[in-house]
């Protein structure tokens, strides 16, 4: 089928200073699952002038339709999740101390000592850690369970933070030369990419953009968004771990890192399979073929664990052929992730080009 597609003349949308500033705003917004309002407000402001129809559904998904032109247009759903992992306050222990739970997949080992922002007013707090002066040798050997961690907001802010408030990692977006650092690259990259795609949608498709909620707690928003859109195929834009740090193991076979998942700088990660989805082979061929035809750097994400909104989307209704494309990022689901600007640019270029080359023949 690939051979029938001829290269479409198109110009890829640019990622310049304005787009990076928008990504910064999106990354600095706090939107722990179930409380996506801050990101949703930015999305609505950005896409309204460009959309044929905009709707916020009952769960809080932003559903944007941008109709194309001409005959035989595919209805293509693109999804990016607005929420991020974080914490929720569960018990007020007075004097500024709060117990908390994690929201989404967080390794408790990396929490102690991290500053956080709580609630809409961004009350600053810190997940307290015992100073090294007072730590016994055997304590250093053991991990600190969630039950013994507290968020300390300082007694003055006691009344401002309350049970049920969410807390996000207090990490501001920073540009580090060719790289970016933020608390929420997963998945503000996807949100920012999808905003650009709505603004610069190729006309050969009807673009159905879903900015989804509650992905990190079980792909809940995407499930209802896919039901509502009932598209012919779906592309999920997400951020996936790069575990490509230099290995310090002994010589021989061991020096090969075989569980890198993806590599920074190697381009957008095309999914063939994860725990939740077997990507439609036709879409895998289309994306790899597009990348090869246009010389866009790309990589196959190592098949294995993890899941994206595609896992919920592809099983919706009578079935929706789906694929995920991710920007690789290091240290995801911790207080600070790092990714390459170039990988983001190539992701936008690849997805835009792949859309522009889509014809209904792909489903034959």
């Amino acid at each position, binding site marked *: 089928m690939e051979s029938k597609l001829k290269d479409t003349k198109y110009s890829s949308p640019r990622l310049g200073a304005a787009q990076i500033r928008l990504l910064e705003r999106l990354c600095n917004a706090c939107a722990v699952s179930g409380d996506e309002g801050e990101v949703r407000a930015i999305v609505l402001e950005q896409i309204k002038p460009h959309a044929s129809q905009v709707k916020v559904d009952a769960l809080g998904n932003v559903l944007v339709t941008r109709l194309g032109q001409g005959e035989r247009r595919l209805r293509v759903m693109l999804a990016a999740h607005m929420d991020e992992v974080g914490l929720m306050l569960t018990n007020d222990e007075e004097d500024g101390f709060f117990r908390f739970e994690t929201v989404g997949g967080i390794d408790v080992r990396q929490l102690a000592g991290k500053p956080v922002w709580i609630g809409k007013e961004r009350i600053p707090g810190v997940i307290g850690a015992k100073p090294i002066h007072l730590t016994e040798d055997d304590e250093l050997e053991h991990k600190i369970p969630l039950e013994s961690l507290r968020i300390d907001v300082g007694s003055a802010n006691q009344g401002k933070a309350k049970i049920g408030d969410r807390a996000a990692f207090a990490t501001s977006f920073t540009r580090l030369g060719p790289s970016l650092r933020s608390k929420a690259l997963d998945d503000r990259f996807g949100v920012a990419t999808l905003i650009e795609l709505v603004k610069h949608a190729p006309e050969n498709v009807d673009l159905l953009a879903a900015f989804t909620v509650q992905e990190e707690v079980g792909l809940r928003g995407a499930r209802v968004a896919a039901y509502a859109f009932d598209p012919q195929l779906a592309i999920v834009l997400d951020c996936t771990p790069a575990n490509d740090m230099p290995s310090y193991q002994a010589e021989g076979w061991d020096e090969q890192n075989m569980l890198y998942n993806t590599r920074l700088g190697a381009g957008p990660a095309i999914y063939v399979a994860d725990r939740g989805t077997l990507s439609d082979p036709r879409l895998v061929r289309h994306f790899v073929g597009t990348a090869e035809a246009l010389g866009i750097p790309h990589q*196959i994400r190592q098949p294995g664990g993890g899941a994206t909104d595609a896992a919920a989307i592809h099983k919706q209704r009578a079935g929706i052929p789906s694929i995920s494309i991710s920007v690789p990022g290091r240290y995801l689901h911790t207080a600070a992730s790092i990714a390459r600007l170039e990988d983001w640019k190539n992701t936008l270029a690849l997805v835009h080009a792949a859309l522009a080359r889509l014809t209904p023949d792909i489903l034959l």
Partner: protein
Amino acid sequence: MKELIKTLVETISPSGYENPIRQVIQGEVEGLVDEMRVDNLGNLICRKGQGTPQGSKIMLAAHMDEIGIMATHVDDKGFVRFTSIGGVWPQTCIGGRVRFLNGASGVIYGERIDDRYRAPTLEQLYIDLGASSRADCPVRVGDVAAFERPFLDLGKRLISKAMDDRIGTAVLIETLRQLGDTPNEVYFVFSVQEEVGLRGATTAAFGVAPDLGLAVDVTGSGDTPKGYKMEVSLGKGPAIKVRDSYILSDPRVVQWMVSTAETASLPYQLEVLEFGGTDASAIQLSRAGVPAGCLSIPCRYIHSPSEMVDYDDVQNAVRLLVELLRQPVQLG
């Protein structure tokens, strides 16, 4: 029917890559069905019968995918690391052979482990395709393979890498051959991606919107030395599922199957499986809910390269299915 079984089980088609087996099945059912379509995920949906006022809309599902593996890494020397597609156990892999969809073949072996009596992890295993560098390895990351093992006919007992669930597809095809007129509107669904989470049956059931659903799949048995304790044996007839981890079969469906078997003097066993699930549970929870059950073929060594079934059980499953379908369904 053995020729049909051999053809079906020797076809390589792991979950998500069911094109080859779908083409084989399409060829077998051509002319036996009134309508045939392939849905968005690749399920083959075949209709037989127009339905009548007394009849029901029945969905039968047998999954055509099989477990397999997918390449995750090709190292400098051309060895391939892999992950599982569906439930693949490391202890059944060592020394086994796989065939990739691109035709390449290789053998699975593992890193040396100090304790030879301990099973390795999947991460310690690799595929040797006879290559000596990444450049001459015929496999790339994301390529898919299934286990390769020829069909073995022991007369009464049959062995294959993919009885789960090609034997179910064989039962559906043979049922189509034997079923004459039916008052029901019957959808024979050859589903995809069962082994990775009943995904195909989920979307097929939404598309078909049946009144009643039956999966046809394998189940375990409790008749091997110091094996799993279970009241199902090979050769005592097809099993009527009462429950597994994912479904409590609709008691009316169980009763319908039991009384039909007894009326026709066909052997059957009742099945209580304490693990696993089949397409039946996906059908049951579709839309506003569907009465569902499962006709099981007892099978030993499931998800190993040598799954064994009893030929009489297979033929009796066909006879029971024909009896179930040829008359209007009365659920008590």
